[in-house]
């Protein structure tokens, strides 16, 4: 499957879905070896062509470029039924390594991404729960720095009131999908985990709500969902990634301040971005190795 690339995938349905399907960790792990999967299917006598995942869900099959195959299949073995329900069928995480780049100079603080995220992922509307948010930095001549993020910047920002301004800019924030994620390290039951493609996820059926991960995240990227009582954070819209789509925030950004794609690809918008800019990450001294890469970041940003 082709990796999602921000420049190549315009899609008007960005905020239409609304339903976030939580990805089950165990399910994820059990699907992470499609090769073994196919073998298993062969052994259980499902038949069908080994190149296409047997009975995969319509959407993912379409994304994978093969027609949904229904009639020719042998009737439901157990494996097959679970495949039909499986949103990950046909997706091979070992083929990907995702990252997001953010061009600070391009962000106009409109907050469309925050809105898109809340809608796409059913994030509670109250101003204490954000998977992504925007900060505005106002640096004054006297050296003062005033940072604000009214309601996460979801409806933009009020006019700057400070006097004697030296410079001002917006910084979008989200989970950094750290390569050395402290949140994963501390989770007592392993409910927070890093997938093979580098995305850090939470298994909501498994999380005990101890909130150690929230304490361990240096970036304030996590919150406890007030209804499910489990830890929550940005998933890079994983439910979209597996279908070959980019995260909702990336798609909604009017200035393309967010660029999403394969970290290791030689030619991708992300790779190009990395070539063209000096890149910085947040709190790099903590050795978390973030995969949200900032260009034109100011030293004041913390």
């Amino acid at each position, binding site marked *: 499957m082709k990796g999602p690339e921000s420049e190549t995938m315009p899609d008007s349905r960005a905020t239409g879905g609304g339903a976030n399907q939580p990805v089950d960790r165990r399910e994820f792990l059990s699907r992470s070896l499609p090769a073994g999967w196919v073998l298993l299917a062969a052994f259980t006598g499902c038949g069908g062509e080994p190149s296409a995942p047997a009975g995969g869900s319509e959407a993912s099959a379409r994304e994978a470029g093969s027609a949904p195959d229904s009639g020719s299949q042998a009737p439901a073995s157990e494996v097959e039924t679970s495949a039909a329900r499986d949103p990950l069928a046909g997706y091979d995480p070992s083929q990907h390594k995702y990252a997001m780049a953010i061009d600070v100079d391009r962000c106009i603080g409109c907050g469309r991404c925050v809105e898109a995220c809340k809608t796409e992922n059913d994030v509670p509307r109250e101003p204490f729960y954000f998977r992504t948010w925007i900060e505005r930095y106002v640096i004054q001549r006297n050296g003062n*720095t005033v940072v604000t993020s009214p309601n996460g910047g979801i409806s933009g920002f009020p006019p700057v009131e400070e006097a004697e301004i030296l410079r001002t800019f917006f910084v979008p924030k989200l989970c950094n999908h750290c390569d050395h994620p402290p949140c994963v390290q501390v989770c*007592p039951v392993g409910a927070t985990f890093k997938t093979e493609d580098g995305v850090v996820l939470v298994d909501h059926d498994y999380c*005990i709500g101890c909130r150690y991960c929230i304490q361990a995240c240096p970036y*304030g990227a*996590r919150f406890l969902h007030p209804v499910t009582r489990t830890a929550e954070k940005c998933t890079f819209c994983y439910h979209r990634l597996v279908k070959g789509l980019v995260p909702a925030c990336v798609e909604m950004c009017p200035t393309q301040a967010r660029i999403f794609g394969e970290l290791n690809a030689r030619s991708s918008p992300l790779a190009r971005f990395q070539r063209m800019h000096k890149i910085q990450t947040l709190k790099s001294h903590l050795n978390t190795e973030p995969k949200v890469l900032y260009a034109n970041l100011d030293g004041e940003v913390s």
Partner: protein
Amino acid sequence: MESHIQTLMEVLQQTKGYIYPNEVELHWGLLVVVYPYVTGLVAGAFILASLERVFNVREVQPTYRLSLLTALAFLLVAPLPLLAHLGHPERSFEIFLTPNLNSAMAMFGFVYAWYLAVVLLLEIWFDYRKDAVIWSRHETGFRRLVHRVFTLGANDLSEHAVRFDRSAGKFITVIGIPSAFLLHGYVGFIFGSVKANPWWSSVLIPVVFLFSAMVSGIALILILYMLTSLFRRMEIDMRCADKLGSFLFYALIIDFSLEMLDFIHRLYEAEESIGILSQMISSRLFISLVVLQILLGTVVPLVLLGIFSPAFHTRAFVHAPAELRRLIYFCAAILIEVGIFSTRWNVVIGGQIFSKSLRGLTVYKVELLGLEGLLTSVFLLILPFVILYVLVKFLPPWPEAEAAAPSEPNS
């Protein structure tokens, strides 16, 4: 939930500077303050008991069994605050089934089980077995049944068996001391290893936790010993009280020095977090840290104990009559308990009221009701005393209870 959102709205109004939006909700509240406080008391009480056993400090002998039972009563309550603060307490067993071995918190279950089953229960069993056998012979009804069950059928009272009890008990104590260190040092590690949090992240935290645990444990036993003697109308053994007073002084000195070391070290290094941390100390934590923890909880008791307890010599600086000394010890111990509770508060809550953006402060509003509210915490702090009361009823820790039993050479 409505009231929760309401509270968060109020908090939002009271934040100062900039905090990350997800930080408005403070996640580890009063219950998580209670948790290290209670475990600290367990570790402290046990270490005091071991002094008598391993180092043969005869003076504190009257508090030996009381310390063990106190440790047990508090240990039984220790996991409850943790459980109550979980979003999904019903899933807590997952910690045992699929622990993430990299997680400091995942080890809790194992450290706890080890300490409860291997150390405390065994030690109490060996210590009381002989008495339980003798008691059960002269009793009827429920008490007899309880003591019978307690002995687990090991009724041998021969000199050999009793001697074995004693050496086994001693052996367990020797294992118990490092275990008590582990139990509480480990609690400190849960906080000390969070690199994201400059207020917690320090190698000294586990050590400070340990010594403050000893301080709180000894103080608690001192209080309990005095109160129980009062209620039983028994004379307080002043040699014991003096000794406890001196121990308290030593432990407090070490604890205070370590805390000051940590403090000076931070001040001198003056890392980027220093600005916001000093702001926090001088505003949000002023009462709980400067007044309660340092002044009332440490300096005042240090001075009192330094002057009136025989900590430096066989005689105190100022020789006060026993009556007055008792009062002073009692007051010092109460102050210390308040101080150590504030210490836990300052670590747990203090670590969360400054933003990790290092640009602002939030507030913590204790809710009254609810699983994580004030009432639950108060209940959890009273519960150990109720358990202790029951334990004491069935396993009287008093020296005369032991003496009253007729010793029989053979079963």
